[in-house]
Structures are given as structure tokens and as C-alpha cells.
């Protein structure tokens, strides 16, 4: 048995379709342009996302953003006009992804039709000159044309090819088999693209109708939170959010545990924390309890409650010169570092004085007199120190709302303690202020939890979409799509068999496929398993 090899040099092969050339051209042109547009839009989306990662973003870190704006007085107004402090909410960013979505839909819809027709049509007949295809070979055999064709059909069917039913050959007296496989590749491709649209829709609904809010809740059954707009400390709604979308619930923190790291380089930091949360989902409903932890949110009818932080609120009572209480109760101090050294202010609505200061959960005084905080673990509270600066004058509360975590001392004068600036108090101590300004008492310590409460509608749609996209992607990447033709005809030397393969997926070693097919046709063991 002799085998001859015939390979044409690399050249363009005319696509094989039952379409007129003109239609084909138009179709191809449309296809190409929309693909290219989609690609450019895709890369544009990547490019448009870059500034948001380099310039501080208002909704991510407002403090850093305002600091940056203060430091760059020339650039800041320009950046603001361009929306560079909120890149992902700007019209131009939206324009890119909306265009991309339209382009995607424009791309998918015609392809769905093409795919549907392709599914129902048969594998195309063999081109006239098989050996002109880039991957083709031929050999002669003593077997008859019918035997070769039957064998080819059996081999290809075994390899899960779809066979062309009618095998009318373009050549007289020749037996011809046309086969195609890998239809699911294009299906995977389409699924992927549709899934991308599903993800975009899910994401859009989530950010338009959802909200994200934060609130600090003090520990104790007398404190609590009910899900109303006014109760939030910060609230970031989507643009189509309506307050009526808040569902009813209230909660309070019954108990709170922190697991402190007591050795190693991170000693004094919190390893884990857990809240014993009690909540009600209807006004007269039962009170349920839940162990709220980081990575373990509570889901109340689609609204999720996350525990994202904690800290201390020293209980401070301020009395005026006549001994009347002007302010009392826990004041939330925010942690400054991982040892829970905390900063906070007390601004009584009436009265002359305001306080700002540091809270040391576990204070040690260095030999040079400098106080340092050792750990966030407060123990029994005996090492806790409250170091307060006292200010006299207008704290600005009358001029409208302001942050409860900072004090504007520009119109105030400081009341200094004898021998230093700050008044240091331990739990239970009271300090009497000079000039008959009253007194300050450090009564005790309450803990607080920072809760993030959010509603993200359609989040499961987005997740399902991504999973679907991944499945489609796997199909479109790893299902091999190809067409095979086998033609046998009588010649003087015996039956000449031509085998050709057209790779429709790219990245495959077609030569090995041809070799494997030839081996199978000749009844030899295949070297390369498919």
C-alpha cells in the first residue's frame, strides 16, 4: 500500500456555504464590523475603569477623596467636571457598557438564527478539490469504494460526528462522506454572550434598586435599631431606590464576644468577634436570635445585615456649674488603630463645654510619661483611660447638622488641666473643671457594633449569569468543532481515498486529526486518541 502526500501551500480557502457571494460578503462584513466594535468597546471598558482605581473615589473613601481634593486645587475642579471622583457612576462609563450591551445583542441575535439554521441543516457536501484544503491527505487501497465509504461512516459515527444523509458526489462514481462535529461549541459561545447580558442586567438592577447603609448600634437590650431611613448613620441608595422598599425589622445586640490574639506580632488585635443578635421581623412577631459574625451575615427577607466592625463607647456624664446633667450616656469612639486606641467627641446640645479625646482600652504609661495603648482587650476595665481635652464656647451645633465624630474648635477656647492639656480619667472617676464650668464623669464602658445593612436585588441573577457564562465559556473553548470529508473513487492503481479536515475552532493540531482518521480508516491502531 502506498501513500502519497498532497498538501497545498498555505492559502485562503473559500468558505463553504449555501449563500450567494453577495449575501455572504454583506453578512461577513456586518459580522466583522460588529465583532470589531464589540472588541473595541470591551477594551474601552477596561481603559475606562483605570482612572477609578488610581484616583480616590468618593463613594469608596470620602475622607481620602476630600483630602486629595484639598491637596490638588487646580486638578480637583477639572476632575470633578469629568466625574473622575465617581468614575463608575458617570454617564461616560455608563455609555461604554450600554453601547457594549447593544453591540452584544446586535451580535448575538443574528448568530442565534445562523446557529439555528446550522443545527437543522446537514453537513455541507465535499468541495470539489479536497486536497486543496489546508489539512488533507490521500492514499490508495485495495478495498472497494463502498467498503471505504461504509467504513468512513462507521468510524465517523463512532467519533460522534454528524453525517450528511445524502451523499451525492460532485464526481462520477465516487463515494463521499461529509461529517461535522462540535455543534455545542457555538452553543457555548452564544450561552456565554447571553450570560454576559444577564450579568449586566443583574448588576444594573442590583445597583439601581439596591442600597447599602451603615449604622453603629450600642450593645445592650435598651439600645437597638429599626430599619428606617432616619436610623442610618450613612445611606447609599441606588438611583431608583424608594424608601418604601425598606422592609420592616428591628434588632438589638444582646451580647458581644471578642476573641483577642494574646501572643505573637499581632498581640492585642481582635481575631474574631461575634454578636448575639436579637431581631423581630414584624411588630408583634416573635424575637429571634442569631449569631452574627464576620463572613456570616443575617438575611432578613432579602435585606442582609453584616457585622463589619466594633469598638468602645465610654459612658460620660457632663454636668454644668450648677450640677445639672447636660449630657450623659455612651459616646461612640472610633478605633484609630488595630489596638483599639479610639477617638471621639462629646457635644452637649446645651451648656458651655465640649469634649474631644482619646480612649485607651488598656493603657500603660511609659517612663517618659507618654501613655500608650497595649491591647484592645479591655479586661475588667481597670486599665482603661479616657484622656479628654475640654473646650469652652460655641461648638457650632446651633448652625445645623455636623459630624458627631469631630469637633470644630475654631470658635472655642481650650480649658487646660493643671499640669497638662488633657484631663485623664479612669472608670468611675470624676474631674471637676476649673472656673466653675462643671464636671465630667467617666461612668463605664459600653461596646458598639458597626453593622452594614444592604439590599442587593437580583444578586442571584448576577451570580447565575456568571456561572452560566463560565459554562458557556468552557464549551466554546474546549469543544472542538470541525468538518471532515472522505471521498473514495476508483483509479487504475486501486481505490483512491482522500481525507480532508476543516478546523472551525482554531488552536488544534489538525494534522494529528487527519493522521488519526487515516489510521482508523485503514484499520490501524490510532496513535493519537481523540
Amino acid at each position, binding site marked *: 500500500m502506498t501513500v502519497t*502526500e498532497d*498538501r497545498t501551500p498555505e492559502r485562503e480557502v473559500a468558505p463553504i456555504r449555501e449563500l450567494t457571494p453577495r449575501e455572504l460578503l454583506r453578512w461577513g462584513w456586518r459580522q*466583522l464590523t460588529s*465583532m*470589531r466594535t464589540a*472588541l473595541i468597546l*470591551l*477594551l474601552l471598558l*477596561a481603559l475606562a*475603569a*483605570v482612572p477609578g*482605581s*488610581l484616583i480616590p473615589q468618593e463613594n*469608596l*473613601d*470620602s*475622607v*481620602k477623596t476630600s483630602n486629595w481634593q484639598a491637596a490638588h486645587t487646580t486638578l480637583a475642579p477639572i476632575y470633578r467636571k469629568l466625574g473622575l471622583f465617581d468614575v463608575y457612576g458617570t454617564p461616560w462609563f455608563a455609555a461604554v457598557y450600554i453601547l457594549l450591551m447593544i453591540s452584544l445583542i446586535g451580535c448575538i441575535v443574528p448568530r442565534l438564527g445562523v446557529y439555528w439554521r446550522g443545527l437543522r441543516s446537514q453537513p455541507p457536501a465535499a468541495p470539489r478539490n479536497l486536497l486543496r484544503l489546508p489539512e488533507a491527505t490521500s492514499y490508495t487501497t485495495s478495498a472497494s469504494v463502498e467498503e471505504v465509504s461504509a467504513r468512513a461512516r462507521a468510524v465517523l459515527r463512532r467519533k460522534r460526528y454528524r453525517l450528511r444523509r445524502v451523499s451525492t458526489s460532485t464526481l462520477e462514481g465516487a463515494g463521499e462522506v461529509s461529517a461535522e462535529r462540535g455543534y455545542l461549541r457555538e452553543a457555548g*459561545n452564544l450561552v456565554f454572550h447571553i450570560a454576559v447580558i444577564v450579568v449586566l442586567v443583574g448588576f444594573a438592577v442590583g445597583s439601581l434598586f439596591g442600597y447599602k447603609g451603615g449604622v453603629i448600634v450600642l450593645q445592650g437590650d435598651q439600645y437597638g435599631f429599626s430599619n428606617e431611613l432616619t436610623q442610618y448613620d450613612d445611606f447609599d441608595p441606588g438611583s431608583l431606590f424608594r424608601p418604601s422598599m425598606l422592609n420592616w425589622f428591628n434588632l438589638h445586640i444582646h451580647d458581644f464576644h471578642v476573641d483577642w490574639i494574646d501572643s*505573637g*506580632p*499581632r498581640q492585642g488585635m481582635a481575631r*474574631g*468577634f461575634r454578636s448575639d443578635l436579637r431581631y423581630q421581623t414584624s411588630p408583634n412577631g416573635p424575637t429571634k436570635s442569631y449569631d452574627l459574625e*464576620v*463572613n456570616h*451575615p443575617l438575611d432578613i427577607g432579602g435585606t442582609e445585615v*453584616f457585622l*463589619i*466592625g466594633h*469598638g468602645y463607647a465610654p459612658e460620660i456624664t457632663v454636668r454644668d456649674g450648677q450640677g445639672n446633667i447636660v449630657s450623659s450616656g455612651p459616646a461612640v469612639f*472610633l478605633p*484609630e*488603630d*488595630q489596638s483599639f486606641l479610639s*477617638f471621639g467627641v462629646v457635644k452637649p446640645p446645651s451648656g458651655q463645654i465640649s469634649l474631644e479625646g*482619646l480612649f485607651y482600652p488598656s493603657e500603660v504609661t511609659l517612663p517618659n510619661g507618654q501613655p500608650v495603648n497595649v491591647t484592645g482587650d479591655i479586661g475588667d476595665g481597670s486599665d482603661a483611660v479616657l*484622656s479628654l*481635652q475640654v473646650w469652652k464656647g460655641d461648638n457650632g451645633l446651633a448652625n445645623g447638622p455636623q459630624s458627631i465624630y*469631630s469637633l470644630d474648635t475654631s470658635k472655642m477656647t481650650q480649658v487646660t488641666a493643671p499640669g497638662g492639656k*488633657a484631663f485623664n480619667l479612669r472608670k468611675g472617676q470624676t474631674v471637676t473643671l476649673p472656673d466653675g464650668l462643671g464636671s465630667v464623669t467617666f461612668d463605664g464602658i459600653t461596646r458598639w457594633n*458597626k453593622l*452594614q*445593612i444592604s439590599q*442587593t436585588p437580583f*444578586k442571584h441573577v448576577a*451570580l447565575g449569569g*456568571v456561572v452560566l*457564562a*463560565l459554562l458557556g*465559556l*468552557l464549551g*466554546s*473553548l474546549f469543544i472542538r468543532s470541525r468538518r471532515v470529508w472522505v471521498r473514495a473513487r476508483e483509479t487504475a492503481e486501486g481505490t483512491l481515498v482522500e481525507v480532508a479536515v476543516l478546523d472551525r475552532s*482554531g*488552536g488544534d*493540531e489538525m*494534522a*494529528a486529526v487527519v*493522521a488519526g482518521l487515516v489510521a482508523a480508516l485503514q484499520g490501524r491502531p490510532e496513535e493519537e486518541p481523540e
Partner: protein
Amino acid sequence: MSTHAWESLSNQAVAAAGVIYFLALLSHLVEWSALIGRRTAVAERKVLVGPAGAESSVPSSTEAPVESEGAVGTSGSSGEDERATRAELFGRLGYLLTCIAVACHVVAIASRGFAAGRVPWGNMYEFTLAGTGIVAAVYVLLYRRLKLSWMAPAVVAFVLVFLMVAVLVLYTPVEPLTEALNSYWLVIHVISAALATGAFTLGGIASAMYLLKRRRPDTQTGWMARVPDLPVLDRVAYRIHAFGFPIWTFAVLISGPIWAHQAWGSYWNWDPKEVWAFITWVVYAGYLHARATAGWKGRNAAILALVGVATLWFNFIGINYFSTTSMHSYAAPAHVAAAAPAVPEALR
């Protein structure tokens, strides 16, 4: 063993791995220098096999032009022979050393994990350690299957350089994880991210080789002649990328958001790391898309792949120097209340 003992074992293993990688690199360089000025096995084999091809039942062109040390003996003077033997010897030695280094590397990663009592991916040092380890391990495993010997110097040099960066710049002592990082989604997220990073890096090396080889595709001598033909390189690069992309998709768009949702209450936060992971995803999506539909093969595809690798590694290391707000900056736990105002200087 105590935490401390495991930690120092890990550090010693890293040092050992570094030294052995360096020896492996030297060995590959000796191999390379022995090839300079010599027609390689590939070139010879083509000449030898060409006329005899008709006897084979399979077209000769179907055999991938791989380097075959066996054919070397048939040619040339004894000097050529000696150099060929030397090249082969040092090539094998280099691979063997790389295998040993990978073993040390694995010990280093594992003992780091034992020291910390968790998966060893809590900070940049550990991630770099694991990432380079995965690049090296994937290379060692695919060495025979994809015939990657031509890639040896590039991979070993890459791993060595990043290992040095890890030790010199990124090193941090063993620390327990902060609460938000303590989730099994972290394990899944980081394994997939590291695996995809390894694959994209190898793919990037293949693409870089493609661009180098493209400048002189007909080189018959030296190390470049051992690098496979352009179509083979292109295909290898594509396959590695096609392997990495679904894993990256899973890491960035599935396990990442699920974990983010659990830990921070929002599945997508436009955090700089997320943004850059997304950019990398888009670039590689563009790469695969361009290959599939626009017919971008070869040069354009290779350039796109290199852009992808650049965004990948910029995200991994570079972005940390531009942005401090990232929730992925492992130094500051995300759960410390974010809105704390600056403490007035007087109180400090």
C-alpha cells in the same frame, strides 16, 4: 514543631530553592551557550527526514518539529558531537535542578502554612511565594507533555526574580489572618487566582518567545532555534491562555464576589484590585475573542497577551503603590471602622 520552627524551616527552604533555581538557571545558560553557532537537532532532523517522508504512512509535516536529542549523533564532526552532548547534559541537569528546587519550594509553602496554622496566602509575600511555586510546578508538570524545554531559561529566570522580590521586598513574619480573610472562600478564591496567574504567566512567556522568534524565524543556530516554530508557539500560547481564562473567570467573577459579599456586604465594590482583575479579564477575553473571530493570530494576539500579563502583575504588585484604599491590602483589616477622622495632632 513550634510556629517558630516551621517558620524558620520555611525560610530555609525558600533560600535553598532560590540557590537551586539559580544553579538550574546557570545550567540552562551553559546548555544555551553550547548551542550557539550550532545547527540544532530540529534543523538537522528536518533535513534528514524530509526525503524519507514518503515512506511514512503519515505526512511528515504532521509531526510537530520537536527537538530530538537522538538525531544529533548522526551529524558533523566530533567537536559538534561533544557540544551537543554537553548541551543535552546541561539541559537535563537544569531540569533536574528545577525539579529539586520546586520540591524545596513546595516545602517552603507548606511549612509556611503550618507555621501560620492556615492556608499560606495571607499576604503579598505568601501569595508571591505560592504564585511562583505554581508557575514552576506547572512548568515542571507540562515539561514533557508540551515539550517545554525551550522555555527553561525564561521560566527559571522569571521564578528566580520574583522569588527574590518576595524575599527582599515583600517578606513579612508569620501572622494570623484577620477575621474577614478567614473564610474557606478565601482558599478557593486564592487557589484559583494563583493557578490562573501561573498559567497566564507561562502563556505570556510563550507569547514573548513568539515575538522574539518572529524577528528571525529562520534561525538555525543557537538557543532560539530550539524554540518551536511560530505556529506551534502560537498554539501553545493559546492553549495555556485557554486553560487559564476560565479559572481566572471563576476566581475574579465568582469566588471573589461571593467572598466579598460575605465579608463586606457587597459583591462588587470597585476596589482597585477588583477593577484591575476585571481589566485583566477583559484583556484576556479580548485576546480569546480576537483569535476566535477577528482572526488575530501571531503578532497581534501575542502583544495582547503581553498586555494581559502586564495588567495581571501590575494588579498584583504595582497597584499597592498607587492606592491605599484597597480592601485587598492585607496590612489593614477591613473591619476597623473606616470613617475614623484624623486625630488632631495635639492629642498624639
